[in-house]
């Protein structure tokens, strides 16, 4: 009885404190990029930006692009790292509102649950720009525009390339899929776009699909089991390069040759991925460019001046085959 009294509350304490400390820790780091001062009348506009985290090389390139272009465009940037937690991000946005920044931009950690805090921003008359990932709010007036990649399109481009490659195939083509973090927009949309595209050829069949959490370790661990459970895998579609890179190791360990025995298609085109593509271990990458900083600064100035902007703006993106990768690799920034 005493035991129970001793340890039961402590579990609750973990949860509460973890949440609280993570939040404060983040807030503390957040302001380090710029001086203080929000909405000062020095002609510069102040942009509050809440980043998802630093979960991948892609994300880091995205962060760098935003920071560099803010400096170049003379925008006062308040940067916050949410460490993949929605509650941190909500807290950061509330801080921005309190500091009366001119424009708020953020990459939502998850799709849902934003209505309240976006309403607060709207009430404070601060325009909001979504970058990279969207939210599922029914009220589209809660944000000015969504700047980012079209994940459905990325999935579709990957699928269309595969359909083209396998148009001569007579027998069934077995595909396994490494999904991103369950419930995230890129995972949902890339899955959707890919599935739509390969529906054109009934021979193409997804035989297994699991989440690898966008990480190399996750991609490797899942691929190992796919390989054991399915003797014949023809194609791997990974929702990002990192999972594909992890899967490479599992494929090699299983005694198969990546890029030859198994066709590998990924999304993102980060440097390690491009290298693998150039080396012939990947077969195709649909780019998802993180370099949206210049576009974002441009948009921030426009919405601050009250100009009308389209509700959806796509980042400039392309696709890469092995040959294109070889050519592009030397100039790749991230």
């Amino acid at each position, binding site marked *: 009885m005493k035991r129970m009294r001793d340890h039961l509350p402590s579990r609750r304490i973990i949860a509460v404190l973890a949440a609280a400390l993570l939040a404060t820790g983040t807030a503390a*780091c957040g302001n380090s990029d710029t001086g203080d001062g929000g909405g000062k009348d020095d002609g510069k506009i102040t942009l509050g930006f809440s980043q998802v985290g630093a979960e991948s090389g892609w994300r880091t390139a995205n962060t760098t692009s935003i920071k560099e272009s803010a400096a170049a465009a003379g925008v006062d940037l308040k940067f916050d790292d949410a460490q*993949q937690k929605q509650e941190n991000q909500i807290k950061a946005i509330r801080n921005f509102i309190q500091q009366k920044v001119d424009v708020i931009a953020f990459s939502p950690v998850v799709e849902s649950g934003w209505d309240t805090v976006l309403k607060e921003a709207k009430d404070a008359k601060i325009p909001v720009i979504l970058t990279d990932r969207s939210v599922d709010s029914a009220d589209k007036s809660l944000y000015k525009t969504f700047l980012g990649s079209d994940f459905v399109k990325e999935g579709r481009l990957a699928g269309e390339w595969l359909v083209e490659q396998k148009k001569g195939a007579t027998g069934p083509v077995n595909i396994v899929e490494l999904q991103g973090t369950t419930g995230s927009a890129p995972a949902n949309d890339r899955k959707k776009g890919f599935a739509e595209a390969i529906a054109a050829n009934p021979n193409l069949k997804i035989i297994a699909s699991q989440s690898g959490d966008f990480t190399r370790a996750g991609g490797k661990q899942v691929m*190992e*089991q796919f390989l054991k459970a399915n003797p014949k895998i023809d194609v791997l579609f990974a929702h990002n390069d990192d999972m594909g*890179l992890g899967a490479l190791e599992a494929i090699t360990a299983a005694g198969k040759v990546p890029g030859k025995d198994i066709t590998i298609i990924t999304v993102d085109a980060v440097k390690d991925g491009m290298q693998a593509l150039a080396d012939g271990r990947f077969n195709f990458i649909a780019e998802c460019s993180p370099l949206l900083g210049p576009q974002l600064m441009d948009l921030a100035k426009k919405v601050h001046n009250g100009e009308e902007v389209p509700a959806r703006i796509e980042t400039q993106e392309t696709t890469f085959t092995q040959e294109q990768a070889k050519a592009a690799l030397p100039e790749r920034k991230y």
Partner: protein
Amino acid sequence: MNSDRSGARALTGHRLFWPVVVLVVLLAANTIYRPGFLSVQLRDGHLYGSVVDIVRLSAPLILVALGMTLVIATGGIDLSVGSICAISGAIACLYISRQPDQNSLGGVLTALALALGVALVLGAWNGVLVAVIGIQPIIATLILMVAGRGLAQLVTEGQILTINSEPYKAIGVGHLLTLPLAIVIALAVALLIAAVTRRTALGLIVESVGGNARASRLAGIRSARITFLVYVISAACAAVAGFMMTANVSSADGNAAGLWVELDAILAVVIGGTSLAGGRFSLGGTILGALLIQTLTTTVYAMNISPQTSLLFKAVVVIAVCLVQAPGFRARFVRRRAPAVAAVTAGEQPKEQVPA
């Protein structure tokens, strides 16, 4: 007859009986789903199969959980192990990436020693906060749990640091005498900890401090030293686990490496029969707990349970294990089935004195 029944009762009453049953059920379910699940082949001179994967993938968790077992046995908890995994992995990879020859064994060993040294300092930091300054373990280690993640990302500069070093890679995916090296390392560390705790009096003293801290002080135990020591051991275990995690994918990911492993480790310890309140601990139980958790994850992939339902599936299994282990739940269940047999054993006497 009578002795048969009491023998059966002793078996089902063993604290690891139910976790073993759940493990066997999971393996059986996998085998039914795919008859080849349990088969192990020799491929390229290595053992190859899903069961080998389970043990290999659980190696980092086993390491972290072993250290956690000692901490929990003293009545403490170490939330910082995940961050220490990330930091040690990041430091090792960073050092190797700066070497002119990443395959040089000397360079890799230096990297390991350097990273392990940093981890020991971090463990000592935890130990000082808890044992000397007297901060509650949960708060003291929370500091490093939060700050350590940032530290790891600082080391990798927010990038995923990819290295190309065969000796380092071997820690995660190499083989020794057909066995994955990770398994061998985990086993060696387990044996080392077993020897350190059971061949010396460390185990007894840890259990004594966790079982009754006031009585231990009056018996002359310098509990501060012991408490300090277990946090250092825990950090060392986490560091080795961090090497494995990063070596497995030949890259250091400050953000993802060891993320939430502290929670899995605590769960493994609890499934293994060590009370969160401290006291008696079981290293074997912890290993079993870690294997059970990894089997659960692998089952999700192997049986292709949809990602949307896999978390629920895991939660249900974990709740089931914890429930059947809880004496109160079992007592109620058994009593209902056979009212003549009281399920309360003598060992549980102290907990049974509830107010009238």
